[in-house]
């Protein structure tokens, strides 16, 4: 049993109500039509490209292609983390921390899932490795981006407090302890919320996809459970690691707060 395939004509038809909406938005002068339509075109082009590439990668299954695709995802995730920062560490440290966090947490969790849980042979099979990595990396990226941004923004705003704490003889680690904790909490909030409401308020996209393509709902649900645990793990370890690295970078060897290392 397979999914009922949609033709390209169906896709055009599915976009028709959206163009009506865009026309309505324009008539109401909401200033949304243009960006919405550009977004819709981007969705089409980007997904079409990914589809073509994935088709090629699946047909010519080889570790080199899986690794290359993973590296592109890692680069895109890093860029997205960097784009979401209000303040950057000078000299490329933000990029470095993002790569390290995404790679360490995202890739470890994915490889664990492929080897220990899914058990597909070979373990790098693109059909499993790429979608799993995509979901885990996407959520790890959100966690890292939120954690880093909260940390650097709060350190900037609370400079006087941090320095007063240092002046009272606290170590750098003690002086930013509350900010560090808050950053990890903020980073984990979306994923913890989705753990709590998953299946009640919304049906996760991956599970819906599997059900649509004819999988047994219980098999789809088990996959979704695994995914939820993996993405929470990735986001958690990724944000912990990057928040820790960033908070160290905020201070120098003499435990002085060095906000001069941050640029807008």
């Amino acid at each position: 049993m397979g999914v009922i395939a949609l033709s390209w004509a169906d896709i055009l038809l599915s976009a028709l109500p959206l163009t009506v909406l865009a026309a309505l938005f324009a008539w109401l002068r909401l200033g949304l039509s243009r960006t919405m339509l550009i977004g819709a075109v981007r969705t089409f082009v980007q997904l079409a490209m990914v589809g073509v590439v994935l088709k090629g990668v699946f047909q010519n299954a080889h570790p080199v292609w899986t690794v290359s695709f993973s590296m592109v995802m890692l680069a895109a995730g890093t860029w997205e983390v960097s784009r979401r920062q209000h303040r950057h560490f000078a000299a490329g440290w933000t990029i470095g921390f993002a790569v390290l966090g995404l790679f360490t947490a995202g890739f470890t969790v994915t490889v664990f899932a492929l080897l220990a849980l899914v058990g597909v042979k070979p373990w790098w099979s693109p059909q499993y490795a790429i979608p799993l990595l995509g979901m885990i990396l996407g959520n790890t990226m959100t966690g890292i981006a939120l954690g880093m941004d909260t940390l650097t923004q709060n350190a900037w705003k609370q400079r006087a407090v941090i320095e007063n704490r240092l002046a009272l003889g606290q170590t750098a680690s003690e002086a930013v302890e509350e900010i560090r904790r808050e950053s990890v909490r903020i980073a984990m909030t979306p994923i913890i919320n989705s753990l709590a409401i998953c299946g009640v308020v919304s049906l996760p996209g991956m599970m819906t996809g599997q059900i649509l393509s004819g999988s047994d709902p219980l098999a789809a649900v088990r996959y979704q459970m695994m995914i939820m645990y993996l993405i929470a793990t990735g986001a958690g370890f990724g944000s912990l690691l990057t928040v820790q690295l960033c908070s160290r970078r905020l201070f120098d060897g003499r435990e002085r707060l060095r906000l001069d290392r941050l640029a807008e």
Partner: protein
Amino acid sequence: MIAFEVKMLKYGGYGPVSFTMRAGERIGVTGPSGCGKTRLLRALADLDPWQGEIRLEGYGAESVRASTWRKRVAYLPSESQWWFDCVGSHFTNSPDADDMHALGLASDVLSWPVSRLSSGEKQRLGLLRTLANNRPAVLLLDEPTAHLDAERTRAYESLVTRRCADGMMAVWVTHDPEQLQRVTTRGYRMVAQGVWKEAVSWA
């Protein structure tokens, strides 16, 4: 005997500054706004990068951990910061009851919420907190009595002076020449960009 020694100290484009202090000494630093007085105190507490030599009782600042140095050479900023809800949570050592009384603070002030404090109370509690938590050898005071009336200012000054009688050293940064006259034994006047001159008289 020299207890605190600063030699050819340069910090953030200011200096060089050199001076020495004996145990119990109180010195004043004055000068126009922007001449680097606050930055000098921050550098002495190792809160800002600096070059040169700073020694306390013979030991260089780099020879101990920064947090240990800052406990001994304690910077008291002009606006004290309070980050917990309750005043008492900011004290790692309980303050001396006589000090509290001398500063005219209510005996139950430690159980107050921070939101209840006036700026004058924050300033006096800032001194109390640094004396209790740091037990400093050198106290670096940055415009410490800006929010206090004459009576509270005198009480503040005499508490610091009493501590200095027991061997603590104090560096007062202030614009008020009368205060320098009252609380310091000698001092320095800074002119533009941290050029450093021994002041004979504060008047």
